[in-house]
């Protein structure tokens, strides 16, 4: 018998939580970006699962996921370009040292 929906949703939730934890607590910028990718993937799992179980004849979830992947890719590229620039100027990618926007 096929797997009930909650399994996938729980998987997605846990993966999202791990990603959130990583994004909030790590100090290396690249690691933070990777955590963000984790979160996005978790979201994708959710979307596809819902799509498969609730509206199997439509494609809304999958299309949405495609766009998520697209944007994630663009964001990863740009984010890492910025990380590189900062690394060049300051020699470190410690997020905690990049706080010139402090108020």
């Amino acid at each position, binding site marked *: 018998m096929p797997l009930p929906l909650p399994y996938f949703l729980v998987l997605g939730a846990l993966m999202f939580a791990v990603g959130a*934890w990583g994004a909030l607590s790590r100090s290396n910028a690249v690691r933070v970006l990777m955590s963000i990718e984790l979160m996005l993937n978790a979201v994708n799992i959710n979307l596809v699962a819902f799509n498969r179980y609730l509206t199997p004849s439509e494609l809304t979830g999958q299309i949405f996921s*495609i766009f998520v992947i697209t944007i994630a890719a663009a964001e990863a590229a740009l984010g890492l370009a910025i990380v590189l620039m900062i690394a*060049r100027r300051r020699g470190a990618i410690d997020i905690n040292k990049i706080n010139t926007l402090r108020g």
Partner: protein
Amino acid sequence: MSLQVVAFAVLAALILYGSYKVVASPLITHSALFLALVLVSVAGVFLMLDAVFLAVVQVLVYAGAVMAVIIFAIMLSEQREIGGDPSAQRMGFGEELRRALRSRHWGLLPAAAAALLAVLAIAGIGRLAAPAAPGAASTSVADVGRALLTDYLVPFEIASAVLLAAVIGAIVLTAREGSDARDGGRS
């Protein structure tokens, strides 16, 4: 046990362990590799959910291109953490966990917040009126393509524009950086 359950269990284990390692691993190169593992496993999950096209796109774009970019970034930036601290590689699980949980500025707060999030989400899921049986999957790659170019044409075009902007942005950012470096590294 059915094949489905086993497959799901394996994939889930890989995903969760992998994500944990992405965050907690002391060496960032290990993190990157574990991320790749996670991405591929996610593609597996997609397959389980009959999203074939999506699985392939996941592998191609995420596990392929994005990973490449990440590894490049690591290579070009973090001299220190690539080689790394030899003793760091010998850390046990407990030690690693302990180190990972404590963030530098906020202590256990991020972990707690994330845990709380998870708890709430799972609680919500528990209350879901879940449809037990999935209906028959009736989509194919052709359907995806058709949908992209008809119902979702506008987002499609916008996504293209975003990608273009990203490419141009990346080039502009790094190119300027490059010319500055050529001018004697004045920053």
